[in-house]
């Protein structure tokens, strides 16, 4: 859990989990990625990534509510752990440091 680096997709999924909070489950993550980022996200790929992230201890899960739409099947809601937040923070900082050095990316917000 020290200096690990996440793959691009893993990072994306982890971020979505942090964003969606109570709605962070497989199908919703897939939809959000589709809507917000406009990229095709495979449901299986997302589930696999979620399991991997859980194995790495960056997220944890509980069973959530069942809805009619799901035919009564419960959801698995994920949430980011402290370690997960630590990695997110670290990644954000390291990205920013590099991006700061690129003149073309200099905007007033940075």
């Amino acid at each position, binding site marked *: 859990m020290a200096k690990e680096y996440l793959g691009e997709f893993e990072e994306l999924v982890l971020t979505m989990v942090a964003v969606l909070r109570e709605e962070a*489950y*497989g*199908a919703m993550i*897939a939809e959000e990625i589709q809507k917000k980022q406009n990229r095709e996200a*495979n*449901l*299986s*790929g997302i*589930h*696999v990534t979620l*399991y*991997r992230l859980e194995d790495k201890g960056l997220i944890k899960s509980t069973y959530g509510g*069942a*809805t009619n*739409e*799901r*035919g009564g*099947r*419960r*959801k*698995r809601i994920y949430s980011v752990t402290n370690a997960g937040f630590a990695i997110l923070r670290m990644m954000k900082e390291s990205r920013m440091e590099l991006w700061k050095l690129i003149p073309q990316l200099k905007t007033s917000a940075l």
Partner: protein
Amino acid sequence: MSKSGVPLFALRLLEWVCPEEMFEEIEGDLLQHFNRDVEMYGVAKARRIYSFKVLSFIHPSIFMRHKLSKSLFQTALIPSYLKTSIRSIKTNPVFSLVNIMGLTIGLMASVMIALFVVNEYNFDSQLSKKAEIFRIYTRARYTGSPEQDVALTSGWLGPEIAKNFGQIRNYTRYWNLRTKVFLKEEKRVAKRNVIAVDSSFLKLFDFKMAQGSASTCLNKPSSVVISKEIYDAFFKPGDLAINESIKIDDTEYIITGVLESIPANSHLQFDALVPISPLAANDRMFQLSWDGGFLNTYIQIDPSSARTLPTHLTNLFHKLTGHKDGEPNSELLLQSLNDVHLSSSQMDHDSNNIKKFNGQYITVLQFTAIFILIITGINFLNLSTAASLYRTKEIAIRKTVGAKLSQTIFQHVFESSLTMVTSFVIALALIFILLPYVNKIVDRDIQFGLIFRHPNYITFFVLSILLIISASGLYQAFLKKRVKVIGNFALQLRGNFSRGKNLIILQFSLAAILMVCTVVLYQQSRFISETDPGFTKDQIMLVDMNKEVNEKYTVLKNELLRSSNIIGVTASDQRLGNDLGGWGFKVKTDTGVYQFIPSNINVDLDYLDVYGMKLKDGRSFSSAVKTDAGRAFIVNETMIKELRLKQPVGVRAGHAWYDSDSLGSIIGVVQDFNYNSLHQKINPVALVHHPEWGFSEISIKLKAGRVNEGIAEAKKIWDATISSYPFQYSFLDDHFDTLYNSEKQMRSVFLIMACVAICISSMGLFGLVIMTTRGRVKEIGIRKTLGATSFQIAGMLSRYFLQFIFLSLVIACPISYYFANEWLQTFAYHTSLDVKPFLVTTFIMIVIALLTICYHTIRIAFGNPVQSLRNE
């Protein structure tokens, strides 16, 4: 949930792929997306998308998350499975008993055969140098006859080849001096196998010694190494026998070694060893000029030289004997010690090779064992399946409560394992108990622990058992998947029994083949005992002779003939009922002098009369004609045929060492007689009369019915006349019986195997009957209500099953005909292969099949149709 919902196939696939923990959420997510897709694209496209999504879930990251151990070994449910297993055994004791019995018998038979086979391969294995030891044998070819392999070599061969060939690390000769009397302190014991060997013998054949040193014990000329039995006869346990003196046939010897008991699986069995060099120095049989082979020669070489050495040996042999173009055309060959026990069936004059066995029978036995294992496995499958028919309620309930496929499989594997392990344990226990009896039948000394020293065989059996268990478990589990849970758990078992039928046919075919072969074996045995060998075998008592007996022979003979219980007395230097020794023989025909090696016997004058041999031409030996001693030869028809002599009587002939100008002549032609087993063709034989050479055995023909009196009288006369040699006798017909030991053993084995196969197949049939009749209960009920009589039903059912028997017989006949024929061809003289074995087999199989099916068939056929139709 069909056309308007998610595709079921995809859902089932998903269920199979996903581990339980994840299945629910994944299914839910897919469903959520599906419903959204239905709104957006419509049902058809949504279903397609769904299927694709499911396919994408087949990913190592998903299905590798299955916790293997959890799905295969459901330890939590074992107590429940145990309870139901025991319960099912209690409710169907007959079934379980039959099943276990069948398994046990089959396993027992296979393991027993494995033990025998391993024991045979293990002959001579205790010798550390076994891989490097080879036996030299002679292959002799006469014109017109097939080549003959003889285990004997010349007396001078050993030292000569050792001198000339560096590859020969060591050699030893092995010369059986036959019976000698051991005398120490007034106690006399006669032993049959006293062997003269080179001092290197115990270095090649490292038998364990109880006393004395193997490397030096045979160096001094008067040394003798005695067996444990001789030691026990003359010494008390713990006595030091070394340096004690003992007389062998009146010559003083010093004991230099005592052997531990020679293991039963050694092809060499002997009572005492003496050095051969002092004997060789004085005996003209060891000179280069001596033409005959009469002892065994073993050499120790690097196995890689075994291919090229024989040519060198043969060349040296021809060079030293000047035999190159003469008759017979002989060559020397090497036989590895590994092959001596199993590959010497065609070897002639091989009496020192004890308990040799035909290696081809071993292959047959191995195949039989595999057959039996196959039949047993099939049987187990069928019977277990049949038994499970009674438990469909239990299956249905388990399925309702949530049993998964893997759990069902595990349950059945568990039950099969229980049965199998029980049967295996019982089989091993039974083998342990029955081993002494088996040893008696096959004349071996098989140790139970033998099989544990051969990992190959253990792995084979363990694997077979595992295979049977898993096969039956899986098979049954899949059968049970088909059990539909209908309302009140009524039974509906769809299934075609064609697989079961095929298996039964296979089983019965194998059993039929074994049975036909057994009958043929017995037929040939009867043929052997009933064929007239060309001489009298019965009531002939054979008595060993030594020098004193030879000296007093005439006196002895006259005394014996005075008894009314003794019909005839004669003597010979060899016994009938084994290969006859041969030495060079010359015949002077119109075309020249023809030299070859026939079989020869030195006999007393009235030999042909006492043995009842028929003369075809000429006359027998007569005391009136003085030249009959040494210059008269009686030959058999085969020799006449080979030499193509038209007028044999009067033709000049003699031993190879006779001068060609002073030969004797052929005085008579005797009808061919089977002096050896019926495996061997009759060779050319010459009977000679050389009283001055001495004979080694007296043949006494006893009056039929007065055998015991005859023996007693003979012993009395003997003891009164002979002082230096005990009265040792045996009977010629017993001796001939030993020739067929392999066959007798195979006969018993095959009979047992055939019975085993029939038993197991019948049990299989039993199971099949139950399965099919249960399925046809309603059909039979309807037939009866429509007017069929019980007998008609019984007939219909019997015909249905008998057709399997006929089919298996049809399959079995050509196969067994082929094998039986091949086996009969190994005999030079054999009975013809007629319909009898096939008729007998057919009859027995039909009877047994009917017995097997009658119980159930009758119960069903005579049952009350009301019962069977009640559930409709």
